[in-house]
């Protein structure tokens, strides 16, 4: 613990004010602690999805045809999932992680124009993903899958819906930082304000990295 040696009895009140035992910023520890906590939140949702996988009493089902209630009568319904759309959403979310890490890089270097460009691109990607999800949910609904139709629909909408709400919050947070940056209020020494939002954004992305194969690709 080298930090003890750096502290002396001669610290000024201002030095003491900035004293931390680890030398790290408290806010960054807090966002990581929050992310750790969120891991258990999504673990609970994912485990419920997996525990109930294949236990639906009626259709529609994710990967296979089934009997389901559609337009007021029981009939054969097609499989719910169509991979192209969600694969596009996945790719966009992955790229947004790439964009925001570039935005942070340029924020730390003080390249405001590039910071604004990459951060704007990140926000656009986030908006695309949310729109994709809204479209997907609506589409599924028209295919006969309401929120409480069966165990699959319930656990699917709850898991991906909570993820989507996290993405939405991330978009709002990143937009706020973008607004600050555009007004010149994100100098390199304040780049932590972006780093916190970026860490949250990456976390939302890695959650999707788990959800995408587990929910969409495992039959």
């Amino acid at each position: 613990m080298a930090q003890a040696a750096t502290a002396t009895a001669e610290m000024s009140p201002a030095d003491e004010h900035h004293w931390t035992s680890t030398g790290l910023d408290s806010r960054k520890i807090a966002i990581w602690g929050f992310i750790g906590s969120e891991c258990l939140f999504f673990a609970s949702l994912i485990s419920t999805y997996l525990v109930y996988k294949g236990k639906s009493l009626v259709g529609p089902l994710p990967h296979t045809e089934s009997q389901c209630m559609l337009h007021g009568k029981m009939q054969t319904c097609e499989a719910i999932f169509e991979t192209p759309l969600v694969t596009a959403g996945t790719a966009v979310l992955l790229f947004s992680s790439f964009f925001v890490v570039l935005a942070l890089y340029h924020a730390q270097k003080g390249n405001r124009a590039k910071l604004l460009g990459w951060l704007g691109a990140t926000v656009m990607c986030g908006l695309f993903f949310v729109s994709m999800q809204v479209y997907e949910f609506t589409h599924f609904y028209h295919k006969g899958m309401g929120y409480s139709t069966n165990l699959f629909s319930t656990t699917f909408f709850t898991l991906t819906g909570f993820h989507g709400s996290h993405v939405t919050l991330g978009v709002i947070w990143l937009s706020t930082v973008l607004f600050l940056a555009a007004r010149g209020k994100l100098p390199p020494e304040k780049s932590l304000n972006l780093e916190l939002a970026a860490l949250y954004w990456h976390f939302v992305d890695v959650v999707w990295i788990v959800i995408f194969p587990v929910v969409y690709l495992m039959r």
Partner: protein
Amino acid sequence: MDAHSAAPGHDDAHHPSPAMYGKIAIVLFILTFFEVAAYEVGHRPAAILHSVVEPIVVPILLVLSAAKFALVAMFYMHLKQDSKLFSNLFVWPIVLAAALILGLIVLIRLWHAATF
């Protein structure tokens, strides 16, 4: 692991370059492609390698997903060169989360299956 010794507050000097970030983005894209490919090959009897891939789709997906997860966490979230504290704050909850998912599946789907 030597990167952890970087002095706190000066770690941005050790951050990867944009080129490095770009390479990782490409790797992530390729891994995602393999994921979808494994899924498509795995459930189309006519596809090439179908008989090889079909029984191992789930392990393939888990490994690829874990690889993507690790890449984003290590490089984009900077865990590789940031303080080890942050890695601990992420890794241990993930271990617990994985144990929770696995435990519930085993408890309910396997051991409790007779009555469920």
